[in-house]
């Protein structure tokens, strides 16, 4: 009998304790927007600039949580399951969106959607608007024009062109790069290309960004519009990709076998320190170049050229411009909180204070009609992206990789590229496996 009492007391204490916890969280009446930030490199801007300014102007608190690099999906998953989940979170495109379909609200009637200049850029489902991009980014081959000028001034150079600006095809690129490698001691570089980083978690420049070029050409040939999921992939331009991949590997600062220990940071540092002349990356890497201690590259010498792989007519193609940065508003939080989220995003991208922070500190090239020309970011790479986007006779390459069927495909493709580097897999197997895996993953995630 006594034991039963004890058990009962125990159970009641437990229940009281548990209900106590949950009651505690419900009583918060402070107006607050919870933003789960994706970009660790600019987390401090949100915390020290955006949040205080927003609170000062509107009285609404902004809670910013940032996931550690490479753990956004995991963090998002656990944060969404909590009793006070994030109101605003990021998704990387149609594939990421598929994983959080139960948590995205329709943004059609928000102010935030109204300021988006090109409505077709938003991710939609039927007539619902589910995610809105907030930053346009561009990538290609970043080169150090000082080293290029030094090369073109060499008396024994073997090419007829006179500046890096004139490189408009793979053939020209190859001729220049190989001749530069022959003269690398005179140019004072360790290799033409910065390390092809293959350390775990650092192969996204290849398995996502580089493969985008053959993907975009193939989809263009087949008339498949950007952003449309498809199982129609045969890796038509595999050999073209191989040409450039080999060029990267053979003219690198680092021997093939050692690439497995190189990170993106290493590659960017090599470029910043003037050890390499070219690195494939995007305008988000500006901070990584400018912020390296002992940086030897002058702002005016940081230039972009498109990624050429040897496809006919490629001189008319520009940088790879697109976005992987979309914001969603959580449908599972109260309508009031959703409205606050809309208010915050609209404030950030249309108020004068907000826009100043976006331009100077977040350094986004935004797709919103609230930004005038003089309000665009001024770091050298962003300026280059904007220059290429507006260049006559050149059109930007879309980000076709957003329809890669799953993260698994990228992981496997990256692993196979690594196997190719180490001589454990032939290129034709890499290509064959990429095609087969595309079909499998497409079916699995349909």
């Amino acid at each position, binding site marked *: 009998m006594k034991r039963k009492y004890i058990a009962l007391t125990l159970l009641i204490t437990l229940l009281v304790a548990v209900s106590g916890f949950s009651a505690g969280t419900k009583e918060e009446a402070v107006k607050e927007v919870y933003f789960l930030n994706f970009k660790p490199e600019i987390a401090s801007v949100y915390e020290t600039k955006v949040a205080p300014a927003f609170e000062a102007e509107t009285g609404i608190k902004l809670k910013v949580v940032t996931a550690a690099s490479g753990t956004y*999906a995991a963090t998002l*998953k656990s944060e969404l399951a909590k009793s006070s989940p994030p109101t605003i979170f990021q998704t990387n495109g149609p594939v990421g969106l*598929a994983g959080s379909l139960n948590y995205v609200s329709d943004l059609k009637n928000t102010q935030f959607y109204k300021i988006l200049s090109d409505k077709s850029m938003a991710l939609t489902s039927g007539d619902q608007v589910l995610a809105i991009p907030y930053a346009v980014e561009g990538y290609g081959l970043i080169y150090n024009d000082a080293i290029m000028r030094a090369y073109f001034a060499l008396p024994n150079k073997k090419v007829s062109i006179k500046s890096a600006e004139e490189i408009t095809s793979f053939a020209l690129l190859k001729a220049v790069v190989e001749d530069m490698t022959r003269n690398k001691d005179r140019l004072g570089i360790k290799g033409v290309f910065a390390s092809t980083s293959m350390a775990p978690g650092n192969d996204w420049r290849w398995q996502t960004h580089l493969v985008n070029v053959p993907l975009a050409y193939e989809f263009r040939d087949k008339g498949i519009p950007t952003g449309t999921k498809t199982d129609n992939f045969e890796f038509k331009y595999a050999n073209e990709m191989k040409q450039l991949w080999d060029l990267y590997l053979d003219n690198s600062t680092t021997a*093939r076998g050692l690439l497995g*220990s190189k990170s993106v940071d290493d590659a960017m540092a090599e470029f910043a320190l003037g050890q390499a002349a070219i690195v494939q990356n995007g305008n988000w890497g500006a901070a990584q170049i400018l912020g390296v201690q002992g940086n030897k590259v002058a702002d005016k010498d940081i230039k972009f050229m498109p990624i050429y792989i040897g496809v006919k007519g490629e001189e008319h193609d520009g940088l790879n411009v697109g976005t992987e940065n979309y914001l969603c508003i959580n449908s599972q939080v109260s309508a009031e909180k959703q409205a606050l989220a809309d208010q915050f995003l609209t404030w950030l991208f249309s108020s004068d204070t907000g826009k100043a922070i976006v331009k100077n500190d977040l350094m986004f090239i935004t797709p919103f009609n609230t930004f005038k020309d003089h309000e665009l970011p001024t770091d050298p790479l962003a300026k280059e992206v904007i220059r290429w986007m507006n260049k006559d006779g050149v059109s930007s390459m879309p980000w076709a990789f957003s329809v890669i069927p*799953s993260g698994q495909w990228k992981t496997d493709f990256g692993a*196979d590229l*690594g196997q190719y580097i180490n001589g*454990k897999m032939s290129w034709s197997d890499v290509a064959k496996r990429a095609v087969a895996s595309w079909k499998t993953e497409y079916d699995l995630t349909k």
Partner: protein
Amino acid sequence: MDKTLRRWAPLFVLPALISFIIAFLVPMIMGLVLSFFKFSTVTDGVFVGWSNYKRIFTDMDFVTSLWMNVRFTVVTVISINILAFFLALLLTQGVKGTNVYRTIFFMPNLIGGIVLGWIWLLIINGILLPRNATIITDAKYGFWGLVALANWQNIGYMMVIYIAGIQTINRDLIEAAQIDGANSWIRLKSVILPSVMPAITICTFLTLTSGFKIFDQNLALTAGNPARQTEMLALNIYNTFYTRTNFEGVGQAKAVLFTILVAIIALTQLAATRQKEVEA
């Protein structure tokens, strides 16, 4: 006294019980239940029956990592226990500075797995540098790297358990054997080994289960590279759950299978080595 103790016991048990329920029992039951659901966050799912379990075997990666894991565990259980046992023998001979050595050998155990992984990544990549290779150039580098790491981390800990075991052996017993003319090999085989059998049981249990549960070292050292060839079970489950869209339930089902598997192996081992324990 006894009565007071009994009356107040629940109060003292309560904090531990609450933490046990929150941190262990609830997640475990949720995990089991979730393995039958299709879900993206753990609080929201649709019941799908056994389909997650069937989908485990749509590709072979679970089986591959199981095989990798078995090989790894076999090698580490043997190497850790043998090395730890001989270190313990050496350090119970009354060598000068015994305590200093014991402390030094035990220290790697105090460092977390991720940090250990990074340290060994530097060491191994440094060793492979002249060969123009890194730990992820070839799966065999990764395998032996993981074995070296596991040994370095666990030998000290197992050594302490073996030392305790050896110290409990009655000196008279060894002396008696010596007088009977047993040489050092026979003393080891017929007196010391049977007497430390309880320590062997616990050490094999610990190394066996930690071999299967290895995660952070695996993540930090190779992250499964090259081409997932050094990906062991825990990492495979983690990758399934977190990096594959719509595979959360499958990851959960793998975790349940994993738990059952490790429990079966560990219990079998316990039963088998217990039988060999002797009363001295």
